[in-house]
């Protein structure tokens, strides 16, 4: 009896330490500091981010790498982290270790990230931006006009037929050469002209 209780307490302690340690180290890989510890990220995309509104803006809210590129929900996050092992492989292979190589792969990488965002209905954008909380009269008229049908769709309980990334590409990093043709020729990313 005494032995069983001991085993349970021991197991629980080990579980707390093990699980806590796992999550702690997972969170360590979820920081801007970790992302830009690779020069590939620091010299290219990180510099570009600093020119954009997601870096510095009127209200002082900043989005850093994991805010857009790593899902917040645990299950999706772990899936993304597992897929990221491919990025470690390419880090070791040196696939993008010079600016020239980075440019050569920029379209491939951008397309892959756009597809990820589109297939999750821009989940990471929506951690901060939601149609329901948009004040259309505070937007510029041309922005308000375009957001309006989606805001109403969501307020009426329908799913808007377009998602953030359909239009908002290249807002935090530079657009790759030939992106427009590539997007129009891609079955996932192509946007049919919105019905008016």
């Amino acid at each position: 009896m005494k032995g069983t209780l001991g085993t349970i307490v021991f197991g629980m302690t080990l579980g707390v330490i093990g699980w806590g340690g796992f999550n702690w180290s997972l969170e360590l890989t979820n920081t801007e500091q970790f992302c830009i510890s690779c020069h590939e990220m620091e010299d290219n995309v990180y510099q570009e981010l600093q020119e954009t509104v997601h870096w510095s803006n009127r209200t002082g809210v900043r989005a850093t790498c994991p805010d857009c590129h790593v899902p917040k929900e645990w299950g999706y996050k772990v899936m993304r982290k597992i897929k990221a092992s491919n990025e470690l492989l390419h880090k070791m292979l040196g696939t993008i270790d010079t600016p020239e190589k980075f440019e050569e792969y920029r379209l491939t990488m951008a397309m892959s990230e756009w597809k990820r965002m589109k297939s999750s209905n821009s989940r990471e954008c929506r951690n901060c931006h939601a149609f329901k909380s948009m004040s259309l009269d505070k937007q510029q008229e041309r922005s308000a006009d375009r957001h309006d049908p989606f805001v109403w769709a969501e307020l009426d309980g329908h799913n808007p037929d377009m998602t953030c990334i359909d239009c908002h590409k290249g807002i935090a990093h530079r657009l790759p050469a030939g992106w427009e043709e590539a997007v129009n020729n891609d079955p996932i990313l192509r946007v049919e002209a919105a019905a008016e």
Partner: protein
Amino acid sequence: MRRVITTTMFAATMMLALPIGSHAVEVQSLRGGEINVEKPEAAPSYKQITAKGGIARSYETQPPLIPHTIDKDRIDLKSNSCMRCHSEKNFEKEKAPKVGDSHYETREGKTLATTSSRRYVCTSCHVPQSDTNPLVQNNF
């Protein structure tokens, strides 16, 4: 765009300033006078205005002014974000004015399917406006 220009100007100034700083005596004008090289004051940033329906031309051949903000737009070797709306492919869908017909002609007068490369940098001629007092009054 402006920030890119500012950064480039700053980098250029730094490149000029560094050697001058260390050999201040050696730099002279051709007539022997001292050259005073100082970092230019940063241009004040003005809020770009939006004007519904565009801004009327002041004279016949004036390049149309940009009636919206362009601070998030970028024109570089790889992409030109103005063309997301104003290109011959997108202008109808985006309900934006199409790039002028003259912009499809090469220097030799040949008409191309897309804009001629000499017209690539929109902001060389087309500029946004801000609501400020003119620095110099004129009667043009």
